[in-house]
C-alpha cells in the first residue's frame, strides 16, 4: 500500500516496527507480530500453566526456543544433581513444558546450552529486522543485530505463546551517537556505563535507543551486544544498532542463518534497514568517544558510576533531597566513604561473565590482562563463560589455562553470580568487581556489594586486589 508517507525517511526502529504491525486498532495498542520468543526456566512456568488452564496451545512452536540459564549451577558436580529442590523443579517443569508443547530446548547437557541472550546470536536465531522477546529484561542484547528485542513479564510470555503477538504502544525514539575513537583500555562496557551515568537509570524510559556513530560502527558484534544489553539499565524498552558488514560476517554460516540464495536475499533485505538520512528521532544525544575513560560503579544503582581516576562522590553534591538520601543510603550499604579514591577500594571477589560480558571476546580480553599474573591472595575470582560454545572456543584458544594458572576458577555456563539464583552468591559484606549489569542491593547475594566494570578492569582488580586504572596495566604476554 503506497501512501505519501511511505517515502518519508524512517529510522531503523520504525522500519522494523512497521514490518510487524498485524493490526493497529484506533485507541488501542498496536498488535505486533513476534518473530522469535526465547524462553528460560524462571519466567515461563506460570505462562505454560496459564495456557493449560485456558485450553490454549502454543501457536508457533517453530518461533520459540528454550534453554536453562538462571538457576543452573556452574560446577559440573552441581549440575549432575541439583541439590536445590525448588530450582530443580523449575528446570524439570521447563523440560516438561517444552516436550508437551513441542518447543526446542537446549538443556543443561546440550552443547548449545548457555545464557539465553548469548545462544540466540550464536545459533543464528537472532537476525536483523526481527522482533524478539523474552521474559527477561536483558533481551535488548539482540538489538545489536538491528532486531527489535525487548523484555517482558510472564503474562506477556503467555500472550506470545498463545498468539505470537504482543499488544504494544509505540515507543519514542532516542538516538545516541558516539563519535570518535575510543582511547586504549576503554571498552564497550565503559561506553554504556558512561551513557547510564549521564542520562540516569530512567533517562530513556519509554524509548527505543538507537546507538550510532563511528565508535559504535568500530565495535565487534560482542561489543555491540554489551551496549544494547544494558539499554534497560538506562530505562529503555530496547536498544538497536543498524546491521552492517560486521553483522553479516558474524551471522554467515551459523546454524539458523539463511544459506545459499536465501542468504543473498536476506542481506539485500537487511541492507535496507539502517536509518534513512534525514529521519527524525524524538531525542538525540551525542557523546565524544575520545573523552571516555574506564568506569567503576560505586553505589547501588547502575547510574552511580564514576571514572576510575575519581573519588567516591559526596552526598552533599546531590541535586536534591531524595537523591542525597539515595546517595547516603548507597554509601552506607556499600560500606564506603565519600572521598575515597576508587582505585583504593579493596575487593574480595571477582565475577567475569553474564549476558553483558560472557562472550568469547570478553574471555579473550580478561585473559590478556590476567596472563602471567596471579590473583591476589585475598581475592576469590571466577570466570563463567556465557555458553557451552564460548567455553569450547575459549578452551580451544587456551584461555582456560591462562585463567586457571592465574588462580581464577573456570566454570560451566550460566547466569551465575549476575543474579545469584544459583549456588554462586556473595556472602554478606563481600565486595565484588563484576562484569554484570546490576549493582542493586543484594543483587549478588544479601548484603553483597557489587561494583560494575569491564572484563579487563575486573581481571586487573582480581590480580591487584583493588580497582586499578587499566590504562596503566602492563600486559605480560
Amino acid at each position, binding site marked *: 500500500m503506497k501512501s505519501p508517507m511511505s517515502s518519508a525517511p524512517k529510522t531503523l526502529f520504525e522500519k522494523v516496527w512497521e514490518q510487524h504491525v498485524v493490526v493497529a486498532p484506533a485507541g*488501542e495498542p498496536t498488535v505486533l507480530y513476534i518473530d522469535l520468543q526465547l524462553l528460560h526456566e*524462571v519466567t515461563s512456568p506460570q505462562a505454560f500453566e496459564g495456557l493449560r488452564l485456558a485450553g490454549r496451545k502454543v501457536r508457533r512452536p517453530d518461533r520459540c526456543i528454550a534453554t536453562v540459564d538462571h538457576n543452573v549451577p556452574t560446577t559440573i558436580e552441581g549440575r549432575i544433581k541439583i541439590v536445590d529442590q525448588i530450582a530443580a523443579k523449575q528446570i524439570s517443569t521447563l523440560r516438561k513444558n517444552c516436550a508437551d508443547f513441542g518447543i526446542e530446548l537446549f538443556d543443561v547437557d546440550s552443547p548449545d546450552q548457555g545464557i539465553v541472550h548469548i545462544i540466540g546470536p550464536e545459533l543464528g536465531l537472532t537476525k536483523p529486522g526481527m522482533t524478539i522477546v523474552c521474559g527477561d529484561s536483558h533481551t535488548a542484547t539482540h538489538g545489536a543485530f538491528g532486531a527489535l528485542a525487548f523484555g517482558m513479564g*510472564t503474562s506477556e510470555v503467555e500472550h506470545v505463546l498463545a498468539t505470537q503477538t504482543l499488544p504494544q504502544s509505540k515507543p519514542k525514539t532516542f538516538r545516541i551517537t558516539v563519535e570518535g575513537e575510543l582511547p586504549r583500555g576503554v571498552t564497550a562496557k565503559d561506553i554504556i556505563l558512561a551513557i547510564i551515568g549521564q542520562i540516569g537509570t530512567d533517562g530513556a524510559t519509554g524509548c527505543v535507543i538507537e546507538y550510532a556513530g563511528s565508535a559504535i560502527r568500530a565495535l565487534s558484534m560482542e561489543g555491540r551486544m554489551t551496549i544494547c544489553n544494558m539499554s534497560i539499565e538506562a530505562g529503555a524498552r530496547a536498544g538497536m544498532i543498524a546491521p552492517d558488514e560486521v553483522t553479516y560476517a558474524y551471522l554467515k554460516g551459523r546454524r539458523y542463518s539463511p544459506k545459499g540464495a536465501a542468504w543473498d536475499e536476506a542481506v539485500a533485505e537487511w541492507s535496507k534497514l539502517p536509518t534513512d538520512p534525514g529521519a527524525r528521532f524524538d531525542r538525540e544525544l551525542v557523546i565524544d568517544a575520545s573523552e571516555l575513560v574506564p568506569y567503576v560503579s560505586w553505589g547501588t544503582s547502575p547510574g552511580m558510576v564514576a571514572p576510575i581516576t575519581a573519588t567516591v562522590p559526596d552526598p552533599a553534591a546531590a541535586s536534591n533531597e531524595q537523591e542525597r*538520601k*539515595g546517595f547516603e543510603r548507597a554509601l552506607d550499604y556499600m560500606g564506603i566513604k565519600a572521598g575515597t579514591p576508587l582505585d583504593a577500594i579493596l575487593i574480595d571477589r571477582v565475577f567475569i561473565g553474564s549476558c553483558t560480558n560472557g562472550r568469547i571476546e570478553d574471555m579473550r580480553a580478561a585473559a590478556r590482562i590476567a596472563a602471567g599474573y596471579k590473583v591476589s591472595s585475598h581475592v576469590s575470582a571466577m570466570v563463567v563463560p556465557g555458553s557451552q560454545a564460548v567455553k569450547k572456543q575459549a578452551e580451544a584458544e587456551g584461555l582456560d589455562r591462562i585463567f586457571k594458572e592465574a588462580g581464577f576458577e573456570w566454570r560451566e555456563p550460566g547466569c551465575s553470580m549476575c543474579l545469584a539464583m544459583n549456588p554462586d552468591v556473595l556472602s554478606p559484606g563481600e565486595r565484588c568487581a563484576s562484569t554484570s549489569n546490576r549493582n542493586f542491593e543484594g543483587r549478588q547475594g544479601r548484603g553483597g556489594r557489587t561494583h560494575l566494570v569491564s572484563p579487563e578492569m575486573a581481571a586487573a582488580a582480581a590480580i591487584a586486589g583493588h580497582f586499578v586504572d587499566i590504562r596503566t596495566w602492563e600486559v605480560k604476554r
Partner: protein
Amino acid sequence: MEPFRTLTSIAAPLDRANVDTDQIIPKQFLKRIERTGYGEFLFFDWRKNAAGQPDSTFVLNDPRYNGAQILIAGKNFACGSSREHAAWALSNYGFRVVIAPSFADIFFSNAGKNGIVLVRLSEEQVNKLLNNAKTLANYQLTVSLEEQTVTDSLGFTASFEIDPFRKFCLIEGLDDIGLTLRHEAALDAFEAKHDQAGWLKAK
C-alpha cells in the same frame, strides 16, 4: 483480573527513588512455579533483617500501615528486572494502587496485567502525599479510576493521566489474550504473508 473502579485505603509511604524489582521480590523467591503466594516475600530483604526478624524501621512493619492497599513511592518505581513476580507480590500483599512520579516500562505493563493501578503524579504532589502519609495518623487516600483522581479528606485533589484503553481494561478486568484474539482473522492473514519473508524466519 479483578475489576477496579474506586478505592479508599490507608496509604503507605515508601520514600525512596529507583526502587528496583530485586528489592520488591528478591531472586530467591523466583524459583517457584506458582503465580500466587508471593505476598509474604514482598520487600523481603527490607522487611526482615539478616536474622529473619522484622525490621521495625521499615514502613510496612509499622502497624500504622497495616491493611494499606495504596503504596506511595519515589520516581522510577520498579526498575530493573522484568520479573512479573514483583507485580504478583504487590498484588498478593494487598496493594491495588501505586502512586509515584514515574514507573519503569516493563513493570508498567506487568502491573496492568495484574489489576494494579499505577498513578503518575508530579514529584511535588507525590512528596506532599509521602509527607502526609508519614506524619498524619490513619491517613487515607481515595483513588477513582473512573474520575482519574486522587483525593484525601483534607482537600488534596489531583487528577492523573491514563491511556483510555488501559483504563477500560482495568475497569472491566479484561484478559489480554482474549482481546488480541478478536483480531484472529487479521492475524491469520498477516502471518501467512509474513511467513513468506524468508529473512524473518527464526529457524
